[in-house]
């Protein structure tokens, strides 16, 4: 249907070269012609069956976890919406006393926090968990237990966090929690701690989901689904997940630093002792602004897929859209300080951020024009998703235009912290995420419900929400221009603000009425199912509309175009008849096909874990750990932490079983290995992504260190001597060497031979070297006279060494776990995924320690 000529035929070296050595002529066999043996489907159903009753809590399948995830995120959307209505009632007229001032502060803080952290990011991640495996024709995402952990951590942590509002302990410092307002001097109660520990914990859940998505998109696509054939949503989720991995460590770090300041008086943000409150703003907004795109890009991916279905033509400018997604991902990291134009930054700095803030509108504009061109090139069917999609384009464009306005520094100074900004951000977020989400609900409901939602009610939902949005937020541009500040619980009469505010309140209730009608529609028509769904209601052309069960598709198709269902009408039947890859379970276990990242060539078969109580156990106890820390119940926190570690180890115990069968036949004459290690394995990819996350935290920590030196060099003391630094570096290099040696020791044995105890002992030696180096580092700085509570330098040095200590401690646990497995004879030769993972992690910790230690000791000199 669509063609995509080579970018530059002679120059593009990647063209027509197999990535793995796989012979592409083997693809000619598909669809196969011989009928499949009886009973294969029944066996797949048995293997992938979900547990019943209370045991359903242990389910890990993406159909269930995705649905739970979406439902929970939507619940938080409703709860945050109720808070917004409370605020609008308070502001309906001047000097209202519906909400006391303190409660109002908690309401707006919780509204922003819940919408951003508990609704928007989890919702797009949830939609990804739900849709991606089917879109990619994978059996499931590569780490189903990690998905389950991420969901339950979010569910338990989120509900506990939200419950704080019912006891008057909800955070009240704004969703961005600026110090010094949130420092112990001005916020002595635990409201702020709820935010810091609660959000930090929920971000860990988001990162777990991002690792899952990156590996899933790059490694579990159906054969033939080359990068340039991926559905736009998969592209968007890939960029989204990479952005999470880069951006979220920054907010995890700043929440940790502020909590350390509040709990132990370490002055990261206290300017009287060499800290700086603007450090918080840099760290927070380095996450906070990309966060807007993190929310928008997946929704844009959904939009790109829906416009094609609405117009029944391929997306116009697929490649331009991909470029726009990637470019947005990059440029969005150059705009964070436009939230700080009013802080007195150097003039040249503001100019750079202003330029980048305007530049980011280029790729966003490309996407909008692609959508419009697609709609214009086909015949639009004015269904409910179509209305939401077109409405979204209108609203997002309006919000984008005011975004370009506030990117200009003098204009920003005028409207900073006024209702103009409130209007702008709501236009962007509602147009860029909420409306596409409602469109997606209507569009994809056929995948998960026995019947579709009502078109008649859907049009009411759209009409009320579209009208309500404009009636609410359009007047706010004016109230902002007239000087009404944000986050103030009331205003004086006769300032020209009364009518506009009343109008906004009316609009909020119209918007809420739209959501209420949607709930009625859901109650009437949503009937969750995993095997008897309503199907392809809007005639989409991508793989998620293939017939599926809990095992996803019966066989994994060979993908020849971007809209396979439009281009090959027989594909549904061929897939269901098992005429493609992996039409059965070759090992009698849950398994999925792992393919290469660029050309999606079959590489190996991954054994997938089934239902387990350990992920939910680990999630609940991790939540207990953080919440107990918040209320300073340290004994309970320690107990929860230990149980959580045990749950994680027990969960991992099953994931690397020795499998006797070495290869599996996934198609006629196509045999692939079953368990592999190294760069081809999913574990290697996931560990590398985790290393990027940890590395970003370390990098932002070093940024904090150098930033504080730049602001307050007068409190800096000299580092310990060079001899000591060289000794620490030598220990860390030894740790790196032992980690490498452990893999060599294991690899020196033949298959099936007993590896002995040396491989894990080598890992333990690596861990011991890291711990020794850390101890030397800490005592060295103490000996030099540095104290963490004395200066910003002390706080950052000991903060980063504490972070290194956390990694080293995890390394100790991993080495002990490896030793236990080795003692039980579970270390397979010549390769073991467990040893590979432990050794690489220990190696990473050694490198991180080396960088942190040497930079902090040698710079600034």
């Amino acid at each position: 249907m669509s063609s995509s000529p080579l970018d530059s035929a002679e120059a593009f070296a990647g063209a027509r070269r197999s990535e793995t050595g796989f012979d592409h002529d083997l693809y000619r066999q598909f669809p196969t012609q011989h009928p499949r043996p009886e009973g294969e489907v029944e066996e797949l159903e048995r293997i992938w069956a979900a547990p019943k009753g209370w045991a359903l809590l242990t389910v890990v399948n993406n159909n269930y976890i995705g649905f739970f995830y979406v439902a929970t995120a939507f619940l938080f959307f409703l709860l945050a919406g109720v808070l917004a209505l409370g605020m609008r009632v308070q502001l309906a007229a001047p000097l209202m006393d519906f909400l006391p001032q303190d409660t109002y502060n908690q309401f707006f803080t919780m509204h922003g926090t819940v919408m951003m952290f508990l609704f928007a990011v989890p919702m797009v991640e949830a939609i990804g968990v739900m849709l991606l495996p089917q879109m990619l024709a994978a059996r499931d995402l590569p780490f189903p237990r990690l998905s389950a952990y991420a969901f339950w951590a979010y569910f338990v942590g989120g509900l506990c966090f939200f419950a704080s509002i019912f006891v008057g302990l909800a955070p009240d410092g704004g969703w961005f929690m600026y110090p010094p307002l949130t420092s112990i001097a001005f916020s002595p109660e635990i409201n702020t701690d709820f935010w810091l520990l609660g959000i930090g914990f929920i971000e860990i859940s988001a990162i777990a989901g991002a690792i899952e998505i990156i590996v899933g998109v790059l490694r579990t696509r159906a054969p033939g689904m080359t990068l340039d054939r991926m559905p736009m949503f998969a592209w968007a989720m890939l960029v989204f997940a990479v952005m999470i991995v880069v951006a979220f460590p920054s907010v995890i770090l700043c929440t940790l630093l502020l909590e350390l300041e509040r709990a132990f008086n370490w002055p990261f943000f206290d300017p009287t002792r060499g800290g700086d409150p603007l450090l918080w703003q840099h760290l927070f907004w380095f996450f906070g602004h990309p966060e807007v795109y993190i929310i928008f890009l997946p929704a844009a991916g959904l939009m790109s897929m829906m416009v094609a279905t609405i117009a029944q033509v391929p997306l116009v400018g697929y490649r331009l859209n991909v470029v726009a997604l990637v470019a947005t991902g990059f440029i969005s990291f150059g705009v964070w300080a436009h939230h700080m134009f009013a802080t007195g930054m150097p003039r040249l700095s503001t100019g750079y951020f202003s330029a980048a803030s305007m530049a980011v509108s280029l790729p966003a504009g490309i996407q909008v024009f692609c959508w419009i061109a697609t709609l214009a090139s086909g015949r639009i069917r004015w269904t409910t998703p179509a209305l939401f999609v077109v409405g979204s384009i209108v609203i997002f464009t309006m919000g984008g235009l005011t975004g370009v306005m506030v990117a200009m520094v003098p204009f920003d100074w005028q409207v900073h912290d006024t209702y103009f900004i409130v209007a702008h951000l709501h236009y962007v977020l509602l147009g860029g995420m909420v409306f596409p989400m409602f469109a997606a609900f209507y569009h994809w409901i056929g995948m998960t419900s026995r019947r579709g939602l009502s078109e008649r009610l859907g049009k009411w939902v759209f009409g009320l929400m579209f009208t309500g949005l404009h009636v609410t937020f359009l007047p706010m541009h004016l109230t902002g221009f007239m000087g009404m500040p944000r986050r103030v619980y009331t205003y004086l009469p006769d300032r020209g603000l009364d009518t506009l505010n009343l109008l906004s309140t009316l609009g909020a209730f119209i918007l809420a009425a739209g959501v209420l009608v949607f709930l009625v529609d859901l109650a009437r028509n949503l009937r969750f199912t995993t095997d008897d769904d309503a199907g392809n209601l809007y005639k989409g052309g991508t793989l998620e509309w293939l017939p599926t069960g809990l095992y996803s598709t019966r066989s994994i198709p060979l993908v020849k175009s971007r809209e396979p269902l439009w281009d090959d009408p027989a594909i549904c039947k061929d897939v269901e008849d098992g005429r493609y890859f992996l039409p059965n379970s070759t090992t009698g276990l849950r398994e999925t096909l792992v393919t290469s990242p660029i050309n999606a060539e079959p590489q190996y078969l991954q054994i997938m874990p089934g239902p387990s109580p350990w992920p939910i156990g680990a999630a609940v106890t991790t939540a207990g750990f953080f919440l107990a820390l918040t209320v300073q119940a340290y004994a309970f926190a320690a107990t929860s932490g230990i149980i959580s570690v045990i749950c994680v180890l027990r969960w991992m115990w099953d994931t690397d079983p020795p499998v006797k069968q070495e290869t599996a036949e996934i198609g006629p004459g196509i045999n692939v290995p079953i368990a592999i290690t190294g760069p081809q394995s999913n574990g290697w990819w996931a560990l590398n992504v985790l290393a990027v996350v940890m590395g970003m935290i370390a990098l932002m920590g070093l940024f904090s260190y150098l930033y504080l030196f730049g602001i307050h060099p007068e409190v800096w003391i000299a580092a310990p001597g060079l001899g000591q630094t060289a000794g620490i570096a030598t220990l860390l290099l030894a740790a790196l060497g032992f980690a490498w040696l452990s893999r060599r020791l294991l690899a020196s044995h033949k298959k099936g031979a007993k590896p002995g105890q040396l491989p894990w002992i080598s890992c333990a030696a690596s861990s011991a070297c890291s711990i020794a180096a850390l101890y030397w580092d800490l005592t060295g700085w103490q000996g030099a006279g540095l104290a963490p509570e004395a200066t910003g330098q002390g706080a950052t040095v000991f903060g980063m060494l504490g972070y290194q200590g956390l990694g080293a401690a995890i390394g100790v646990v991993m080495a002990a776990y490896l030793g236990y497995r080795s003692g039980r004879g579970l270390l397979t030769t010549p390769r073991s995924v467990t040893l590979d993972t432990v050794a690489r992690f220990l190696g990473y910790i050694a490198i991180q320690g080396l960088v942190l230690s040497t930079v902090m000791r040698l710079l600034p000199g």
Partner: protein
Amino acid sequence: MENGGFYNQHDFRTLAIALAVWTAQFTILWIASIVFPAQPLARWAALPFTLLAVGALAWLYLRAGRPALLTTPGLGLAIAAAGTLFNALPSLLG
């Protein structure tokens, strides 16, 4: 089947490198602006790094076989070039 069989047809590598060039130039210019606030050095530093970035983009353009604008590397290079030149404007305007 679409053109190209089962091989990826788009040059995503050039796209990513081009945008990385933009990122590097932006980062260096910003660091210069906060290390030397209100000093001419911060503005002058923009010149060589912008020239360097533009040179790198030009090299990428040639290496990619002079791709047309509406291709993956072509549009990526165009956006990166626009962003790079745009980054330099504040240092010119003061």
